[in-house]
Each structure stands twice: as C-alpha cells, then as structure tokens.
C-alpha cells in the first residue's frame, strides 16, 4: 500500500521536472513546505523502495515506477482542481481540497469527471486521461489547449497572443538546455520560455 505522503513526494518531484526545474532536497522540501531534514529522510526511504534514485547533494531522479505514480497523482490533482473550480469553490479551497482528493479518487471516477469537465465524450473507456503540460509534447506534435495555470499576467499575455482554451497548438521545436519552446498557433509563431510553457496544459493529439 502506498501512503499519501509517498504520493505527495512523487507528485512534487514529477511537477518540478515538468516545470524544468532540478529536483534537489531543497527544492522538494520547498515544494512540499517541509523541513529539508525530513525531506532527506523521506527521499532516502523512497530510494530504498526504488521509486527514485537519490544522491545526496546531487539530485533526485524518478524511476519509471516512481514517475508513473507521480504523473498519475498530478493528473488527478489537476482534474480535481478543474472540477472544484467549476463547482464554484473559492480559489483558496480549490487547491487544498484537490490535494486531499487526489489520493482517494478511483481511476474510473477520475476519468469520468475528466471527460465531463472537458466536455469530451468520444474517449474510449479505459483510455488514459491525457492532459499534459506543453513542455511534454515532442517537436512537431500538436495539442489542444485545455487550460492555463499560473499568474494572471502571464496567462493573460498568453491568451492575448492567441493561446486560449480549445485552441490547437503545434510545438515546432524546442531549444537545448531546457530552453524555450517555439510553438505555432493561429498562423503565427511564438517563443515561450519553459517555465511559462509548463503551465500551459494541452490534450496531446
């Protein structure tokens, strides 16, 4: 049985990777708002259980096993966030409650909510929920924007340049060294820094 706290750690590490940030003891501790000492302890434990590879002072890498769980929990978290905000819950509660629910919601229920939330009924049952961040698309791959997270300034700026929900975007290419993404949208080409792009969520095509 995987405990909630294991799930929380894997989710946080996966989220850091998606944002293009290196996962270290400090960044994981910051992400989870725990003391670095307890993070170190937990990371060692998770390494022993083969969820991740951990070298003190170097960094943390998820194993395929750990990555699978991290990705799943993060996906559930996002689906629940979206669902709760549609229910009209105040912003302050949306994140907190999604953090709770992500550990308890069964896969099939998540899928159902996801499909309802996205207004998409054509997904065959059993297909994985496929909302991913723009940064995880491959060069040349297309996606349809599901939602944009993050600060108001950046999300409005992205929307102003044509990245609005339900718009198709193509990743043209991405720069080396965790550099920006070049995307094409509405007949124009934009460059988007990786940190910004990580908050654009798309359904991959």
């Amino acid at each position, binding site marked *: 049985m995987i405990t909630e706290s294991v799930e929380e750690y894997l989710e946080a590490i996966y989220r850091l990777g998606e944002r293009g940030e290196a996962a270290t003891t400090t960044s994981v501790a910051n992400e989870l708002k725990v003391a670095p000492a307890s993070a170190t302890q937990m990371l060692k434990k998770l390494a022993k259980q083969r969820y991740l590879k951990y070298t003190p002072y170097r960094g943390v890498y998820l194993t395929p096993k750990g990555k699978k769980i991290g990705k799943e929990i993060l996906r559930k978290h996002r689906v629940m966030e*979206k669902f709760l*905000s*549609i229910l*009209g819950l105040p912003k302050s509660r949306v994140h907190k409650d999604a953090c709770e629910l992500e550990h308890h919601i069964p896969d099939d229920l998540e899928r159902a909510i996801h499909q309802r*939330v996205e207004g998409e009924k054509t997904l065959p049952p059993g297909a994985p929920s496929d909302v991913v961040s723009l940064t995880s698309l491959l060069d040349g791959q297309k996606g349809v924007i599901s*939602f*944009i997270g993050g*600060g*108001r*300034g*950046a*999300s*409005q*700026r*992205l*929307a*102003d*340049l*044509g990245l*609005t*929900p*339900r*718009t198709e975007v193509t990743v043209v*290419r991405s*720069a*080396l*060294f*965790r*550099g*920006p993404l*070049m995307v094409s949208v*509405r*007949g*124009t*080409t*934009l*460059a*988007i*820094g*990786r*940190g*910004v792009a990580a908050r654009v969520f798309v359904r991959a095509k």
Partner: protein
Amino acid sequence: MSTAEKKSITIALAGNANVGKSVIFNYLTGLHQHIGNWPGKTVEKAEGTLHFKGRTIDVLDLPGIYSLSAFSIEERISREYIATEKPDVVVNIVDASALERNLFFTLQLLELETPMIVVLNQVDMAEAKGITIHVPELQKSLGIPVIPTIATRGTGLDKLLNKAVKVAKSKKLARPARYGREIEEKIRRVTKLVKKIPIQYPPRWVAVKLLEGDEEIRKIVGRIDPKIVSSAERHAGDLERIHGEPCSIIITSERYNIANKIARKSQRITPPRGPSLTERLDAMTTHPLVGYPILIGVMLLVLFTVFTIGGYLSGFFEDAMEIIQGAFGGGAGEVIGEGLLGGLIAGIAIVLPFILPFYLILTFLEDSGYLPRAAFMTDSLMHRMGIHGKAFIPFILGYGCNVPACLGCRVMETERERTIAAFVVTLVPCAAVTVVVLGLVGAFVGIHWALALYLLNLVIIFILGKVAFKVLPGEPMGLIMEMPPYRKPHARSVLKETWMRVKDFVYIAFPLIIIGSVVLTGLKVGDLLEPIGDVMSPVTVGWLGLPAITGVLLIFGVLRKELTLVMLATLMGTANFATVLTPTQMIVFAIVVMYYIPCVATIAALVKELRWKKAAYITVFEIAFALLLGGIAFRLLTLV
C-alpha cells in the same frame, strides 16, 4: 474654434509589433518627426507632421502591442490615449499574413468606438504564404474601411491618407463586434449601470473591462460608484461558473473566436508546396547544432563591425579634438575650452562613433527578424542571471560599451525585467574597463590574474542578477514573444530609425557629459584636485590601501573609465606602473574601476531607460559594492 474650421487632423497609428507600422509612419512624416517619451513614462512617443491637401496632419505612432489588456505600460498608454485624447482617426495597421491574431487587436480597438480605418499591410508577404484576402468581405465584417497596402514599396499609402482624412472628417464611429448571447447579456446589464455615471470612456468598453476584472478601470469606476464594480464582479462570477475559466480569459477566447470567424470568411489559403526560404532560414538559425555557431558568428561580426567602424571614427574625431583644444589658453579659457568643448568632443569622439554603428546594426537585426531567434537560443543561459533571452544582445554589447547595451534593454517588456537587465548590463566590463584591466593587471601582474578578474566578474553577474530577480517586486515574466518571419530589412526605415535613435541619445547624454567635463576641469583649474584626493584618502588609502592620488583618478574615471589609466601615467610621470604600484594595489585598483560606477554616459542611458530614481539606486549600489569588494580583495591579497 468650430470644428468645421479645424484644419489640423490627428491620426494615431496602432497595431501589433512587426506589421510595418514604422515604415508607414516614416513614409507619412518624412523627416518631420521627433521621438520623445510619454510624459512620466519610459515609453517612446513618436510624432510627426505632414501637409496634405491644405491640412496639417499630426501623426502619432503608438507602441506596437498585441492587446489593450493593460499588461504593459505600452498597452496602458495606448488605450488611455485613444480613449481620452480622442484622435480624429485611428489607423489600425494589420499584418495580412497573420490576419487572425491582428484582428484580435482590431476588435479591441473597435470597442473604443472611435473613427477608424484598417490598413491591410504586407499583402505581398501574405501572398508569398499563399494567403489572399477578399477586402470587401473584410470591410463588411468589420464595418469600417479597409485599405490594402505594401508599405515597403509605398503601394496604397496615398489611398490610406485620403481615406483617413475622409473618415476623420465624417466622425463616423466604429462599432464594436458582438459577443455570444450569454456575454452580451452581462455586458448589457453592466453598461446600463455605467451609463449613469460620468466617465470619459465609452460605457460599453468600461463594462467589458469591468467584467474582465481590469485593475485600472475597476479603480476609476470604484472611486465614483463601488456598487457598479461589485455588481460587475457578480456578473463575471456567473460567467466563470458556466465556463470554468476566469472571465478575462472567457472574453479573450470569445474575441479570438470572432477574429477567427472573420479571418476564415475573408481569406483563402493555398499552402505553398515545401518550406519557403524564410522558413528554411528560420529552421537553420534556431537549429540546436547549427544555430549556435551561427549565433556566435553573428555576435562576433557585430562586435567586430561596431568596433572597427567605431575605432576609425573615434580616431578621426580625436584628431579634430586636439586641433580645437590647442586654440584655447589657460585660466577661464581653459575651463571653457577643455571643459565645455572637451566634453562635447569627448561625446562626439568616444560615444558617438560606437553608438552610431551599433544602432545601425541593431536596427538592421531587429528589422530582419534575427533578434528574436537569438533570444530563443540564449533564453536558458540568460535565465540563470535572472533575465530572459531578449536581454542577450544588450548583455553581449555591454562588453563593447555599456551605453548602447543599456539603451538596448528597452526590448524587455515589463519595467521589472527592464530594470534587472539594465542592472546586469552595467556590471559587464566594457572596452574601457578592459583597457585598464589588461593595461595594468594583465601587463604588470600577469595575464592569469586579469582572466581571474573576468571570471570573478561573471560569477558576480550571475549572483547579483539572481538576487535582483528575487528582490524586485512584481510578477516575474518569462519569455513570451512573437517570432516574426525573416524579411529583407527596408533600407530607408533602418536608416531613419537609426538617425532618430542617435538624435534622441545625443539630447539626453551630451548635456550630462558636458556638465561633467566642465565641473572636472573647473576643479583642476581651481587646484581642488589634491584637497579632494585628501578628503577621499580614508577610503582610498585607509580602506583600499591605494596611493592617495587614485582618489582623483577615480573621479575622472566617471567621465571615461580608461582615463584612470591614462591619467595615472601622467600624474605618476611613468607608464611603468610596476615602479609606482604594488601588484596588490594594481589588482585592487582594477577591481574598483571595474565596478565602482557606470560612466557618465551610461548613467545618462540608465536615466533614459529607467528614470532618475532607479539610475541613482544602481549608481549608489555599485559604488558601495566596488568599495566593499576592493576592500575585501585588499585584505585577502595582503594575507597571501
């Protein structure tokens, strides 16, 4: 004066960046233009006049923006201007090759309900992309006149002027496009409330902005009647519950839907077979392997060109300077001759020769579309200094001269990013500093020590940049920019733009350089240099362990940093510095010169880009930092 007699007309040019707006502006106004700043802002304001059919026409070039959402100062200035100053006609310039995104902006202009025409520019580039636009159809959808043009060739611009004047005279207001039923219903309700209060903006526009949660409009309306704001908030909440998105995003999406519908109805696209030349050029210059060598090549070429041309011009002017200076004698004549004229000629001989080729090349690169590619390639590196890819070019240029580098920081969109970039750039050792470091430390202590100083400098830049990133208030903004297609730069526009920028710089920097020079010469003539050196000795001698004479040198270095070395030789009576300074003193002196203050021309550039207060902060910080670092270095080096 009755309106019928009014002979002068104001035209405001508005549009996205990279649509050929400045080409049209230059064509219309010729040399009768001036660039200043908007009152109280660091945003460029370009105005010009022309005479047309017995009328005086004032043309105002608004900043190139993508939206009126008040994201940046440029956007706020533009909408404020159109809504309150009410130009006689707004000429919206639209890129025919990216119709949908451009129409998104057009739709926002329509909401300001002002007389307006649309100029469909770059129709040739659109055709190269296989896009043909049916003008009458577009005209019908927008409800205002549409004029197709190719500005670079002057095609259609007379027609533009005729139409603009006609619309200005008719005073026919543009009408906003209609949104979906749900949103329209909310807009109608809020508009009804807004109509009851006195406000100089169009009521419907205010209602839309309130629903979008626009901070500025909320404040203005809130001061008159806070109940309207809370009512709009409730309506916005209703929409958010239905759509599950913030209301500003709902409305933005809706606008894009309308833009998309209009674009699809009025354009036909036959995709060309195979990638075009510009697309292949784009793929090459942003290629992970090929792109970087190209980037390095371009940068070297820029530095080489700027300094070859600059060095040549500088030598030429310096000769002229000596001849003129010889004509003045001592006493009061010296203050005027050396101070005033000397300052003027220093400006012409030192700054101008480098600024001119720099601006020319920068404008050329900007116009061709290479700058965004360079930003794309270097974004991740620049992120580590707390800035993003757009600051790369200013950063590299800083190694040549900090002045154009600071001026180049205006490509950063938000005030916050611009401040960090300008700060980082002033820490970069320019060519004058290199002269001191190599001429003193490199020649007399050892080249490895000189290199170590440069390495230390890079480390400091990375650290201080990150610190500035952390401490400055505001939302950090990552890179979000358009990548316009490559195009052939338009020679006349490039030259004119360069000319305007140089002129603008001269106005700001020259007075400062000349005043600085006069003051220093006055001190010299009045024999005040030594007393000042003595006053500074607790710092120079006590804290830094340098000879007292260096105090005077450091003061002169504010004018031009290489002067510190030149004057050291004069005052010491020898160019063999090993006889007058210990190796430790040389290193400490070089460190202080490296950081201690931006030179007076750089300060002028900082004032221009960031205004007085921030320029002062940066200057004071750097003096303190240089002294701290120099003092620490002195103590560490004496330990060794």
